[in-house]
């Protein structure tokens, strides 16, 4: 298992928002986290690369192992963790730099200076993100000039450039139009050959289209976790069935 979660709780101050999550994410597959708003799926996702650390009063309790190592163990190098576990956000957040500098950012802060190495990695990452052909002639232009869908693919390329093993995606297509969304979904499908992907989505059909396994969260608890086909064709839990068929109020 690439990611092993055991009895994981999460607190914002005194409020417990995740209760005893148990989850195993297999390698090189897409695992989707679904559930109504506020069910904790994003909080859980951000716990995997410890992005919740930046929130004061937020703390996790329990076990999350990536490749067998507890990421909340004292002395864990969070910076190194975040290079192995990349993240793409709901609202694309390219830096106000050129396209090239955006993708190269992670490499540069990692100490890579060699121009050729940077250029090669930038090209490879942009190709992996299915963006290279659209931007190869304007790498020095501002990233902000790209369309929404292109910006999101740029952020994916940026995340891929540091060669993570795991890619966390927090509603990556929710701010995009249907065509851009479909392109992202296709990209995810291609990426899973090389990366372990965990995606939070509030769009159930997207989860059904794109993922191999699906976890249904509700009020901070993991209600059901199974193969996507099972969740969407024959779920075990009534709550899952109700959610997936749209019987929720």
């Amino acid at each position, binding site marked *: 298992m690439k990611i092993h979660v055991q009895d994981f709780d999460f607190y914002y101050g005194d409020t417990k928002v995740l209760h005893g999550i148990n989850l195993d994410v297999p390698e090189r597959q897409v695992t989707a986290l679904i559930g109504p708003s506020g069910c904790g799926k994003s909080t859980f996702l951000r716990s995997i690369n410890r992005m919740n650390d930046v929130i004061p009063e937020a703390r996790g309790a329990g076990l999350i192992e990536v490749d067998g190592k507890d990421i909340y163990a004292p002395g864990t190098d969070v910076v190194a963790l975040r290079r192995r576990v990349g993240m793409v956000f709901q609202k694309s957040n390219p830096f106000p730099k050129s396209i090239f500098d955006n993708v190269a950012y992670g490499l540069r802060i990692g100490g890579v200076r060699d121009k050729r190495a940077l250029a090669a990695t930038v090209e490879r990452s942009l190709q992996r993100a299915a963006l290279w052909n659209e931007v190869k002639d304007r790498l020095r232009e501002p990233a902000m000039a790209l369309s929404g869908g292109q910006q999101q693919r740029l952020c994916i390329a940026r995340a891929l450039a540091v060669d993570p093993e795991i890619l966390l995606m927090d509603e990556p297509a929710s701010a995009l139009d249907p065509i851009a969304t479909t392109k992202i979904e296709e990209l995810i499908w291609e990426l899973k050959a090389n990366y372990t992907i965990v995606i939070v989505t509030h769009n*159930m*059909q997207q989860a*059904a289209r794109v993922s191999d396994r699906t976890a249904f969260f509700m009020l901070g608890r993991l209600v059901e976790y199974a193969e996507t086909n099972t*969740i*969407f*064709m*024959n*779920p075990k839990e009534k709550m*899952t*069935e109700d959610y*997936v*068929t*749209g*019987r*929720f*109020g």
Partner: protein
Amino acid sequence: MHVLRHFDKDIEEIKAHLLRMGAMVEDSIQQSIRALLEGDLAMAEQVIANDDRIDQMEIQIDQHVIELIAKMQPAAGDLRFVATVMKITPELERIADLAQDVCERVIEMSSEPAIKPMTYLPRLAEDAQKMVRDALDAFVRGDAGLARAVIRNDDVVDQLTEESFRALLTYMLENPRNISPAIRLTFIGKYFERMADGATNICEMVVYLVEGRMIKHSAES
């Protein structure tokens, strides 16, 4: 209930439509049995005439279901429901066609000498009729147990068909003049046996709908 209430309405409409079709098919079976046992040719003609309406219903229900899939992207139980409906409609249509076939043979036989009162055939016909009725009940009530009982009964129907055939064979051997009507009756027996098969198929889908398990072509069926 679905948050989208018109989703519920659509499903109820499809169910009701399917049950109306089922009722019409049951009527056709009933009428074909009476035509067979009482030699009522007018009834036989009526069954044949009604078949068109049943065919139309199959098309309409299928259309309604496809629209629902396009609009609502049903999932889980709803998805199994639409898959089941789309598998039941052609079965019902075939059963209705079989009733029509029975009536056609009855009409052909009317100009031929009658055979001694049949023993196995009436039982076979009524068994098949009951199976179809139970299959539709199982669908309406979501009763997997009843569906399984119907499936098991198919063996009985097959047995009755075989015995009916043997009896008719005897008639044929007795008197060459019996051959023609006996053969028509053999056909009729086959038709009822296939109605029972259709009811069995419907019940397999009901089990799928209720339990999420596909038992077609497995040891259970």
